[in-house]
């Protein structure tokens, strides 16, 4: 099944989601090529193992649809049958545009797929990962949007061996301004061994300083629930869950988090889960290795003092 991976550049690098898909496709021995989209200057996104074409967009324009037009041409020319990408913002838009061109529905939130006898079986988790939903796609073109962290990341040697194409604007392109890139400091959610997440059970946004202190002591990254992101306690980039990031650290410490399925789906595969919640019945305890029924505001300060 001839495969095209649509990758993405974040912080001037091929993002880990893209590398995870490449790892998976390599393991399945599929014939594949990569196109990568982004708007920054990049150097090491190529490889001797696969061809990568960088579609560079204008950082002052929103012009993903003209980018989709270019990828469309490539799909037709090279007869790709399987088109894989991450369910991130940019790639979701691209795949949605392309799915219209090829008159087919993409499968969203994919966590795994199999190919046997040229049949594609796709798995996605539903109900916060409590059930696995299986479908087969029978259109000529098959588009999958894959959740980051679904596949093991293998070693991939990257170099400067890639081609670059500039994406031109079209009639749907729009000007963008006041572009803000949130500063990334300290351990990052995606690759930290310990993640400490806060929920509404931290009671007030000022109490997040406790989470920061604890994270400093443990060299951990900080995450949060949508409830506190929506409340403005934390930037969106730190949201864990269905509409945020998926994390799989060695240790996940959930502080004052109820454990809604939409949160669980982003963290339940962490190796060791510790939850602190004052409600004995909180669903987070059902997936915890160690559950502390207690007040975050008394347990966490003592934890900090004794570390």
């Amino acid at each position, binding site marked *: 099944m001839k495969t095209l991976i649509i990758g993405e550049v974040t912080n001037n690098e091929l993002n880990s989601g893209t590398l995870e898909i490449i790892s998976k496709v390599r393991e399945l021995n599929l014939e594949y090529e990569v196109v990568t989209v982004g708007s920054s200057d990049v150097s090491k996104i190529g490889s001797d193992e696969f061809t990568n074409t960088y579609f560079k967009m204008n950082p002052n324009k929103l012009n993903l649809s003209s980018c989709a037009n270019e990828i469309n041409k490539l799909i037709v020319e090279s007869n790709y049958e399987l088109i894989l990408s991450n369910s991130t913002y940019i790639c979701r838009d691209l795949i*949605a*545009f392309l799915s219209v061109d090829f008159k087919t529905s993409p499968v969203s939130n994919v966590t795994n797929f199999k190919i046997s006898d040229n049949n594609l079986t796709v798995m996605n988790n539903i109900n916060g990962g409590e059930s696995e939903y299986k479908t087969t796609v029978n259109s000529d073109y098959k588009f999958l949007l894959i959740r980051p962290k679904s596949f093991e990341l293998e070693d991939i040697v990257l170099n400067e061996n890639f081609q670059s194409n500039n994406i031109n604007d079209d009639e749907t392109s729009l000007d963008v301004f006041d572009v803000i890139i949130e500063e990334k400091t300290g351990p990052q959610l995606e690759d930290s061994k310990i993640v400490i997440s806060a929920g509404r059970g931290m009671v007030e946004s000022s109490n997040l300083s406790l989470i920061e202190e604890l994270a400093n002591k443990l060299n951990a990254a900080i995450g949060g629930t949508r409830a506190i992101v929506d409340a403005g306690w934390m930037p969106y980039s730190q949201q864990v869950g269905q509409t945020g990031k998926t994390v799989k650290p060695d240790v996940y410490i959930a502080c004052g988090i109820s454990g809604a399925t939409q949160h669980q789906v982003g963290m339940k595969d962490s190796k060791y889960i510790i939850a602190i919640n004052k409600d004995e019945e909180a669903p987070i305890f059902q997936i915890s290795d160690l559950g502390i029924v207690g007040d975050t505001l008394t347990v966490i300060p003592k934890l900090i003092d004794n570390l």
Partner: protein
Amino acid sequence: MLMKIAVCAKQIPDPANPIEYSDGQIVRPEEQVLDDTDRYGIEVALQLKEKFNAEVTVISMTKVGTEKGIQQALQMGPDKALVLEDDSLKGASSIMTSNVLSELAKKVDADIIIFGTESTDGYSGVVPQQVSRILNLPCISYVKNIEIDDKVTLTRQTIEGSEKINLPSKCVISVTASGVEPRYPNFKDIMAAKNKPVEIISLNDIQYTAEQNMEFLGIEDVSSTKEGEKIIDEGESHNIIIEKLKEIKAL
């Protein structure tokens, strides 16, 4: 000039109950409610209406039923609703939904079409972008804030932060569940909604050719509740956490 806004309202089974599946499809009761996700898009539509000469139409695709969710949408303040009710669309894929919603947007002659980012029950998260492609309109996805003075500025969430865009005269917008605060209808709004026009049509009334391209194979229960330890804090549980962290070599 009259600004015509179409805003999506999806009816979903009450999220207070767990989602049930039958043959791979969500079981939908007679009475469905408004997806909270759509309240954010409706709020954006109403803020535009307050500043401009605008007409706001709720559009929706749903099974035949009580339309409680449509009423809930109208209670917030839109002028009217155009609803396509057809039981044959049960289990519609994203592209089928997008085709229907595009036709509804055309029927109300919409300049601006507003969506949620992803629905609570299906969360495919691609319908807004698909509609923009079908209608060849600019797509401003993941809008988290709107500022209206002499011009309209939208703030988009991006993976690295945010960026701003001026609202063009024709476009598709998807709104995330943050930034704007959806309004609560009062008693008067609730009564007024009952008299707002709701036009109900079926598949025969639109141009529709989309097809299903996925076949359901099965659902497997993969839930794994852990037999973890649960300790009631009596003042010493921080020590247990530290011991555990040492035991698993995280410290």
